[in-house]
């Protein structure tokens, strides 16, 4: 290969080396930790926060709103209305985490007196932890949490400018956050909330929703009662295609959050309306209520208890694990920390390597990566032991 004539120079390497060393000589000797992009990332996602309960107020006959602030009084991280917080509880020997949709608005997390609120209903959802939060948690209690998680929020690149929330029961909470944010002028959408409850007593945060509906022209709240109730002049029945149609206007994105039975029902109703897939978003619904009800679950094993060998680093311990409870629940009962997020199989925070043994993965919402499936990784919140197992989890 003949090099172009003017490139007859053979001292290039020495020249560029000298240049490089010169530029270092001229550089500042000051130690400067200037990583503003990293700082913004940390402001949005600071990791585990220490939080204190600063108030507990009734949100309905059976629900309470719990206000959390940072123990150091600082602002809470940014988040999108509709996202959740994971709270960690120590109850007896157990270390338990739960995701809760944040019912307060993002702007309230960044105000003068920054806070975040969750609203929890008694004895619905998954049992004793709801009762614990309702009955045992008190003002002044300190706990840890991670917030700004989940994909259930308005994304302007994707969603229509009119959002219709289809809520059931305590599934109203992400929409309360959105409604507050819309009313404050910091979320640029029109929001219609169709909120299904059994009776008017069951409506969570009714006063606030009605007040926001009154105050904000971009916001409409429609209560729909499924039970008979004297004197009720509002909408009745379930959230059917008819009633959804009645309140839809033009291009609408449907956001759905509520109990599992409502999802099954709404899927049918929305199908009738011929809505494009990109306009429908379901919030993950949390841990399967009864894994044994899913197709393919080995029913003959459901009452068994297996042993899971848990490897962390070079150590291992053995813990009991019930067949009908997820691996995460077994770990939490044994007081072994595992990070969890959605507890629906989706987010992958509890990604765990199965070294040996068999398991059943909840077919609903399996969010695993393909290569992970090939190598025996599970999201432990949605995986159930069907034999003795050996797993490896992060050291926390």
């Amino acid at each position, binding site marked *: 290969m003949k090099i172009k004539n003017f490139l007859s120079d053979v001292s290039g390497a020495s020249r560029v080396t000298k240049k490089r060393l010169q530029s270092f000589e001229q550089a500042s*000797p000051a130690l400067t930790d200037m990583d*503003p*992009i990293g700082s913004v990332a940390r402001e949005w996602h600071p990791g585990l926060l220490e939080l204190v309960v600063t108030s507990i107020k009734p949100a309905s006959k059976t629900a309470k709103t719990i206000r959390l602030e940072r123990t150091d009084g600082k602002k809470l991280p940014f988040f999108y209305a509709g996202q959740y917080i994971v709270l960690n509880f120590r109850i007896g020997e157990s270390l338990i985490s739960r995701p809760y949709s944040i019912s307060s608005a993002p702007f309230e997390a960044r105000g003068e007196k920054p806070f975040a609120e969750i609203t929890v209903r008694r004895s619905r959802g998954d049992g004793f932890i709801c009762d614990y939060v309702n009955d045992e948690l008190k003002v002044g209690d300190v706990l840890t949490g991670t917030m700004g998680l989940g994909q259930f929020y308005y994304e302007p690149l994707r969603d229509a400018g009119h959002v219709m929330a289809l809520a059931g029961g305590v599934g109203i909470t992400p929409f309360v956050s959105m409604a507050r944010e819309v009313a404050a002028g910091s979320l640029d959408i029109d929001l219609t909330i169709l909120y299904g409850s059994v009776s008017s007593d069951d409506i969570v945060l009714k006063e606030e929703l009605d007040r926001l509906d009154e105050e904000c022209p971009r916001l409409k709240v429609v209560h729909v009662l499924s039970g008979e109730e004297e004197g009720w002049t509002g909408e009745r029945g379930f959230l059917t295609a008819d009633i959804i149609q009645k309140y839809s206007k033009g291009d609408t994105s449907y956001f759905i959050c509520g109990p599992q039975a409502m999802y099954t029902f709404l899927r049918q109703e929305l199908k009738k309306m011929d809505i494009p897939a990109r306009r429908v978003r379901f919030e993950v619904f949390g841990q399967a209520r009864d894994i044994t009800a899913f197709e393919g679950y080995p029913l003959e094993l459901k009452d068994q208890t297996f042993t899971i060998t848990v490897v962390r680093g070079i*150590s291992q311990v053995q813990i009991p694990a019930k067949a009908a409870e997820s691996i995460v629940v077994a770990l939490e009962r044994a007081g072994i920390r595992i990070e969890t997020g959605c507890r629906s199989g989706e987010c992958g925070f509890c990604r765990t390597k199965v070294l040996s043994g068999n398991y059943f993965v909840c077919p609903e919402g399996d969010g695993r990566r393909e290569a992970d499936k090939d190598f025996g990784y599970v999201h432990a919140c949605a995986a159930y032991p069907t034999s003795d197992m050996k797993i490896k989890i992060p050291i926390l």
Partner: protein
Amino acid sequence: MKFYKDHYDVIVIGGALAGLSSALMLADRGLDVLVLERHNLPGGIATSFVRGGIEIEAALHEMMSIGPKENRLKVGKFLDDMGVDIDWLPVPEAYHASLPGLEVTLHPGLERFAQEVDTMVPGTYDRVLELLKLCDTVFNSVNELSIHPMSKAKMLLKHEAFVKTAGYTTKEVIDSFHLPQKAVDLLSPYWIYVGSGFSDLPFTIYAVLMADYVGYGSMIPRKLSHEMSLKMAERAEEMGVQIEYRQHVDKILVKDGKVYGVRTARGDEIYSDYVISSAYPNTVYTRMIEPISEVPEKATKMVNGRRISLTAFSVILILDRPAQELNIKDYSIFRSDTMDTDLLYENLAGLGPYRYLTCICHNYGNPGVTPEGTCSFSVTVLPRVDGWKEVKAEDYDRVKHQVAKQVIGDMSAYFGVNLLDHVLEAVIETPMTVARYTGAWNGCIYGYAHTMEDHIVARLQTAEEEKFIEGLEFAGAHAISGDGMGPAVTNGRKAAKNVLDHMAEKEAAK
């Protein structure tokens, strides 16, 4: 409870491609290796995530230096040798260039590429091929010299082209071929993956990039880059490497100029005489070395004297139509209103509107990558950190959406289809996203800019003098071979080799 051994031969900070390559090579030599990764899965940005039931590639556009099974290139061969068996799929084209007065899809293979350029700009075949062959010669020299260093005299004899072009910029060398501007434009689009304007980009780097990419084409793993990262991690564990996820290394422990271990954010102190850091030298020398007094002034001046290269901004869309129906016809499209790389490099210092867009539709290389009737389409800008450094936390969401709308708007206009009418899932990745998941200094994915002041040849020459702390090696985009997923593997191997050499020297001294 005891989670770690009393001592490891080597501790690797970061379980991405570089760190895992180090670990594989060291384990292959029988060493006891611990990898500490801050995230809960391997790969760094060579990863994927699931949205709405669809697994989405986070970062990989094309993997270079793999080559077909019967004729592997450097990285492909290393992975094969290590027993990492990846299901590679060939990327069907080099790129589609959409530039002023030019709309053409070019394909790999030096002759074919030159022919296709000639079709657009007649009469250029010989000169374009000559230039590409020069690139290839330099590329082969770099590959050989990075493994077998030799004396300058010998180098001049055996690697004449490499030696003689070392002192020149890409612009200077290309200009010497007297090609029409349009032909130069068609030879330029891939510049963005090394990210300096041609008047400051060492020709050596351009040559390596073009010869590898245009000469040999590229590959992608069928199950996205997570397949590659995970298979490397799994293989490493099989070879006895201990990998611990969710372990953020806070400090590198140093005494009398020598490394003796690390401390994690969790508080574990773990001991080893060797640490390979995927964390940037900037991070290491400003916040990780303990005590900080062990950082020599020369190290500080070095990190202050180097220019941080590019970061990444991507909008990834899952669309509810097959690509053809949306007028998306290529795997990779480079679109710009100019191909003046110096101007474009300036443009990358801001927050947009960005003029140089890189688009990928993975379905063309990996048909099953999204469900039937859908496709994946991403637009990437690789901006300099300068503009993004000014973004405040409270403005972050507004800025990222503003940029996303600009780049999607520009591509929608090009396709004549409003892509926003078809979005099943939308993900915006920003420099902050990179920083969040990998901890990379200022979210930079490309290490230090390849410039005439920080030339790869100079980096090789001064590497020994820049080992400021004994036992500390660096692996990642910030190491000598620079950015890209292929070079990450090479950087990891190099760091491992340095450790092995040092061990051998110590052994010999005994």
